[in-house]
């Protein structure tokens, strides 16, 4: 079972703008413009490692998700890991 955690907080600049959030990734120098649930996911994975199911539960609890989508979350985690914003441990 994969476990995930956010990239170290010191490597991320997270700036909410409006419905979208800017994330400057200091490690790569790349700016990401992201929509929900990415900021929420990174917040949930800050300073803790979670499995996919634990992350899903954490998001569902924190944001009152009625119909959490496991496959979509797995896809987002895959993208964020590829981008370096989330690490697989």
């Amino acid at each position, binding site marked *: 079972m994969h476990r995930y955690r956010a990239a170290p907080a010191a490597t991320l600049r997270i700036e909410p703008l*409006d419905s979208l959030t800017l994330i400057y990734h200091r490690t790569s120098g790349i700016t990401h413009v992201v929509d929900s649930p990415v900021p929420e996911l990174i917040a949930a994975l800050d300073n803790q490692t979670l499995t996919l199911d634990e992350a899903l539960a954490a998001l569902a609890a924190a944001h009152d998700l009625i119909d959490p989508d496991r496959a979509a979350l797995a896809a987002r985690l895959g993208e964020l890991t590829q981008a370096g914003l989330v690490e697989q441990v």
Partner: protein
Amino acid sequence: MRHSTMLRIGPVGFRVGSDWRAPVATLNELYRDYPQPDIPDFNVRLFAARPWRRWVRPSVHIAGDFVLPESAPLPLAQGLLAAEMGMNLQMALGQRRYLLLHASGVERDGKALLMTGESGAGKSTLAALLMTRGWRLLGDEFVLIDPATGMAHGFPRLISLKNEAIAVMARAAPEGRWGPMLTDTPKGTIRHLVPDARAIAAMDRPARPALLLFPNFGFDAAERTVPASECFVRLTQASTNYVALAEPGFDALATLVRSIPARAIDYPDTTSALASVERLWDALA
């Protein structure tokens, strides 16, 4: 090089060298009221690919500290355009001190109105028209944002007017000083207008950004609020050095889009655009 000159536009100094006398003479005439830099930041070279091409079908290649491979040469009659393109190129590729926005800007009461958009959107023309209506021109092509202060620094190079905009500005600025009419350039007919004395005299005085507009010429009049995130994305696309500046560029741009309102304005003619600008500006107060 055989001929050279130095000039400073806003905070940026250039040395322009040329194999031919004419482009340097034209620059000296049109930029005669501009200061000299102590030390130029960038060098531009206008050169003949082969010695005999100084005379035989002379064609002007553009080089400098920063070059684009494969850039096409221009005929000698368009030597001024080559010099301007060379200076723009150094800014676009080499500027590291300021966040460079491909935008025009004007100032009133210490506050800056920034206008950005695709080529043909009308940002040069609108800035030039506003210059004739009591605004101070910051620049028609680049606005420089200081990451340390967030202030907009002017870059009032010659105003590059294209095609129909030339006649529009000839009517609006009958006293204006002009460069030669350059026909058959890659962008059609181009003529350069010298910014007015006020723009040149005050070019070292930055202004606090206050309003961002995305004008779009050729449509029925319409207006919409542009959210900060869209401004951010569009301005990263309008900046050639956003990536190179790294985190200071991110900070500067995030702060800018958060701190000022932004509107997209479609306009069918310049009268309509100018009315929209004045109305939006007045609404800020």
